[in-house]
């Protein structure tokens, strides 16, 4: 008797997820070293972007919580 259909699908999904994970880790390795020189101005800009994103995500979460309530 052949392998059940669900088993085949699960195996394929597993194989696809594994291949994607290894591809992502290869990409992370390839680009691990940033090629932009991190001057104080660049560092300040990146810090601003992180804070900006945190503030925006905070607003989105606040909106979501007030909507749910």
């Amino acid at each position, binding site marked *: 008797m052949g392998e059940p259909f669900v088993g085949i699908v699960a195996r394929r999904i597993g194989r696809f997820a594994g291949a994607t994970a290894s591809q992502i880790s290869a*990409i*992370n390795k390839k680009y*691990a070293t940033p*090629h*932009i020189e991190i001057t104080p101005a660049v560092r300040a800009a990146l810090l601003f972007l992180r804070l*900006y*994103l945190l503030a925006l995500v905070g*607003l*989105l979460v606040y909106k979501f919580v007030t909507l749910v309530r």
Partner: protein
Amino acid sequence: MNFWARLFYNWRRAWKALKLYGIIAGPGIIVMVADNDAGGITTYAATGAKFGYSLLWFLVLLGPVAFFIQEMTVRLGAVTKRGHAESIFHGFGPFWGWFSLVDLILVDWLTLVTEFIGMTAALSIFRVPPAITVLFVVLIMGTMIVRGNYWTWEKIALFFCAVNLVYIPCAFIVRPSVSAILSNGLIPHIPAGGFTNGFFFFLMANIGTTIAPWMVFFQQSAVVDKGIQEKDILWARIDTLLGSMFTVIVAAFCVIVTGTLLRGVDIHDAAEAAVQLMGINAYLGTLLAIGLFDAGLLGAICISLASSWAFGEVFGWAHSLNSRIREAQWFYAFYFFALISAGAVVLIPGAPLVLITLFVQVIAVTLLPASLVFLIIMLNNEESMGKYRNNAFQNVANVAIVLAIVVLSTMYAISTLFPNWLR
């Protein structure tokens, strides 16, 4: 050299230059005209209906803003031969790279849904069912890429750009007062009623439609896919400049149409404006609806490609429109998946389309500042850009533009989340 010989020589030179431009033209015009997508046309129609010609001067100012930003993507693409997503990975590492890629895919997909909303609304005026519209759009966009040829895709996209000029004859049909346009529209001023919250909201909405994250990613990838070299940068800049002029002209003529005939009417979407105009003049309503469908189609064409290019660049798949489907399966699979899934959402009964339309503005501003800041930083990298890096004037202009866009688009997103904040 006598007069006739000099004339012939100059004519030959001009003809050669024009032919060269004809080869390089494309990405700049397409991205700029596609900027007037379904959301853009809705904003312009509502702006005209609300403020008449009073904000035309502001739209004219947005032309140089779009040009300065997009021109940077031309240089970055032509010199580094990398798309924007790959450039961010290369320049700033995996954290910012993944953030930009995932955010871009999300923003693009949501924007694609809004393009389908615009296109189905436009064709519903002609009693075309949404399912047929979605199928028709998927077929058109499939046909554009199926030959595996960038040139074919570009020429078809340029044809749709030409259709976008439909608002110009519309404006001539409504016979606006030229003196009113010149005196009330083109001289910068605050409209009667002063600097109200509503006025500020419309300023922000118009800026929000001028620069979108997908435009930065799209044009840089298109420059790379087309194979534009450093020596072609001047022509690619001219292409971008012409595109920015087209986008302003289309926006201005759309405002003139609704500003002349629908002044004082509250317009919530461009299809509603087309229906209203249909009651006044059937030709006008028809042209406006065709223009809205075309705007949505152009937006969909560029946005779905921006995502596929970005994914292909980072994952290392074949990602050129010059590749046939079997040579770049993942690239085209992603393209069709984004397209069909976004179209399917519009067909789901009771899908939260209004929420998606509002949400897309908010998600877009999570990506816009990052992509613009990265653009300026990369354009100042002497090691990779050499003599094509930003000069002092470009830096001052671009930093000022980026700061203004970041502040205003963020305020627009906040006012979308919290409507009582401004209105």
